[in-house]
């Protein structure tokens, strides 16, 4: 165990959390928007058929 362990753990943990959080947030927002586009398209199609 080196004197720097705390700093090394903090550096890697902060980087991992930030990178994963932004990636997940972006992916989920993109998926949500895809579902919204699909729902709006289906609603327009249903309205057109009526």
């Amino acid at each position, binding site marked *: 165990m*080196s*004197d*720097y*362990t705390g*700093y*090394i753990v*903090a*550096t*890697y943990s*902060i*980087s991992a959390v*930030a*990178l994963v959080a*932004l*990636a997940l947030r*972006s*992916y989920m*927002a*993109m998926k949500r*928007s*895809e579902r*919204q*586009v699909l729902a*709006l*398209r289906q*609603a*327009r199609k249903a309205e057109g058929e009526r």
Partner: protein
Amino acid sequence: MHRFANPAKFTRLADRILPWAITAALIAFAVGLYYALFNSPADYQQGESVRMMYVHVPAAWSAMFIYAFIAVASFTALVWRHPLALIAGKAAAPIGAMITALSLITGSLWGKPMWGTYWEWDGRMTSVLVLFFLYIGYMAIWQALDEEEKAGRAASILALVGVVNLPIIKFSVEWWNTLHQPASVMRVDGPTMPAEMLTPLLIMGVAYQLYFLVVVLWRMKLEINNRKIDVMRQATAE
């Protein structure tokens, strides 16, 4: 380039690239982290603390690369009015801001045991802080102006003006007295770093670039979808 100006074509291309880019990013991170943490030597001066370099330096490289990407996208949007260029710039900014913040935080954490301080107003740290503020300013302009086209143009001009900061960051360690060491990788006469350290550093550098590619494609798809949603909602309201 203009072939992919069509959002539908771009989305199809992104969907083809994404699985490969995600796989490559995961492999690069796994291999890079293994080398960085377990299979690279301690530095003869800095000891084990040198392991912080493998996340700090790639973050700093990416912070500059992403800003250059936004600047090129902004130039393309202003000169050729490429419809995807503005979307690319807008999508890349939050990633760049987060990675610049990471570069500053990890740098501080490395600085404390090595220099005895978390922060010093030296040329390198101050110019990277300015880069972070440029990202924040670019995103704030997009948020502040309602009209998409005006916001895009104003943000693009700021991005282009801010490019002057990139050479300042790069050469700050040569121009001013600084706690940072001079360049040891990107040098005209080749890297001075030993191969056992350079290899994991470059692998982590590639991993960060692949991460950026994956997330920017997701965020560009999100922007395109948001525009589609706005158009469809307006059409429904009319």
